[in-house]
């Protein structure tokens, strides 16, 4: 019995790191420009398809295609910003919600059109297999994904705290007007936040594709989880999203284990409601 619980906690922890990575782009874009990207999960889906097709067409393992896909997703993020987001920066919030929602529907439509609704899976990757850690069986893909997520998080935090561009990003998130007066080009920072935000969710997508089915609607559930993570961590807080991701991962698996797996998602959503009602600023929000 204890073994099962330990096993459950381990898998919750591992998936929690991936949730954090899915959410970090969402919280970053929100922090920098006050826009919620409702299509965030769809970018995850797109990158999972990239990973799948790189494997099928070129025989490239997801771990090898990861750098290329990250770059592609970065480019897609920048393009999305200039085409869809820039025109509505100063628009009413309703328009902003509808535009990112429109992006969600658009990307799903493209995926359904190109690849139909079939479930696809990369059969075997470098990360496949299990390892036995003191009696706890852990899937290697999950472990690789978790480690990848932690590394990626480390790079993001280093970037934000130690580089000029990263600090400029944080400055824009802090106070747009002041940042503008300091000579920071906020338009470029907005574009950059989309680039980085979509690149990070792209990395999460590639890591997920080593152990998760790919289908056009795969983004939906992850996007909702990312909302919960972002709200729990505090909208705009990068560190908060990391802690929140772990908490959400644990809540999901533990409630699934203790109560019923079919309800686990409900507890995650209920957690969102509890957070925004009781502590709307989240764990680390201002």
């Amino acid at each position: 019995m204890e073994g099962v619980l330990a096993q459950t906690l381990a898998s919750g922890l591992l998936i929690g790191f991936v949730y954090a990575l899915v959410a970090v782009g969402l919280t970053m874009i929100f922090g920098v420009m006050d826009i919620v990207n409702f299509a965030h999960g769809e970018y995850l889906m797109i990158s999972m398809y990239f990973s799948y097709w790189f494997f099928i067409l070129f025989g490239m393992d997801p771990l090898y295609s990861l750098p290329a896909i990250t770059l592609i997703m970065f480019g897609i993020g920048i393009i999305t910003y200039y085409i869809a987001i820039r025109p509505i920066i100063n628009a009413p919030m309703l328009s902003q919600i509808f535009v990112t929602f429109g992006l969600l529907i658009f990307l799903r439509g493209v995926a359904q059109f190109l690849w139909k609704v079939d479930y696809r899976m990369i059969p075997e990757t470098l990360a496949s297999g299990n390892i036995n850690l003191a009696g706890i069986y852990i899937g290697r893909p999950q472990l690789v994904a978790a480690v990848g997520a932690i590394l990626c998080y480390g790079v993001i935090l280093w970037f934000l705290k130690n580089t000029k561009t990263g600090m400029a990003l944080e400055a824009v998130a802090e106070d747009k007007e002041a940042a503008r007066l300091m000579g920071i080009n906020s338009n470029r920072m907005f574009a950059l936040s989309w680039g980085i935000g979509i690149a990070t969710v792209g990395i999460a997508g590639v890591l997920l594709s080593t152990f998760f089915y790919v289908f056009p609607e795969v983004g939906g559930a992850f996007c909702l989880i990312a909302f919960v993570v972002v709200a729990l961590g505090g909208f705009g807080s990068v560190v908060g999203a990391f802690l929140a991701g772990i908490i959400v991962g644990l809540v999901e698996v533990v409630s699934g284990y203790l109560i019923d797996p079919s309800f686990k998602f409900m507890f995650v959503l209920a957690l969102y409601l509890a957070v925004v009602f009781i502590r709307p600023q989240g764990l680390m929000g201002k």
Partner: protein
Amino acid sequence: MKKGLVILLVFFAALVIYPFIFKNPFPRHLLIMIMLYGTMGIGWNIIGGYAGQVSFGNAAFFGVGAYTTAILLSKYGINPWIGMLLGCFFSSLVAVIVGYPCFRLRGHYFAIATIAVGEIVQILFTNWEYAGAAVGIYIPILEESFFNFQFHTTKLPYYYIVLAMLAFALLVCYAVEKSRLGYYFRAIKDDPEGARSLGINIQNYKLVAFILSAILTSVCGTFYAMYVLYIHPANTIDLWLSIHLCIIALIGGLGKIFGPVIGAFIFIPLTEFTRVYLGSEGQGIDLIIYALIIILLATLRPQGLWGIFAKSSS
């Protein structure tokens, strides 16, 4: 205004005559769906368009209306019209329970909270054995009559019932707009701080808007259950239904009485025709088309298409 009234009367006369011209099932079904979504779109418009609170959870009210009717009829033999009323009651109750805490949230937080609520309601119904769980509920077949809300030989009575619902929804919306309520709702949308300083109890008026929205949507849920005679969580409490309602209101014009009707007249034929003509080959094309419409409208014409029609008719 007088001219507007004439146009409205002509419009309704056309709707009344329509089934005498189009006798095939498909065009009638199409109009039934347009009017059903138009009614729900008006319901969404009251909370989303007038009061400015973007709800992605209205499908929950549709589901509560449909399930209340279906459960009462199939388990206790209770008349569907009573089911409709009780559905409105339960939907209002849900609106209050959900709205009371959620209306403290602003903007995105509220929109996401309504997604969470809608999904939670769907998960509950999907796992609720008594309500048929994921399989859903078949409505028992009764003798056809208006009293039983069932018609098998012809769909025509359904057509007129939903037409009456649409007229009712328009009246409700008109009454709201002409009363102080409409004024308060717009104040809440445009300037919540100002509204508060004028002594408007924002919370309560948002709740009123949400309840009206819930009732209009719940009635449609009952209608749908009796029209299709089979309901399950995926065809009633679906996030996509909620999204469609927003799209319909957006296309027509947020906060305009007639907006959702125009939206439904554009959106529903588009969905039906893309489904019929593109079939599985064109899977996804319909989504791409809506997406482009939504993005272009929200970017270039956030006030919807209503203005174009209004200009030519005023």
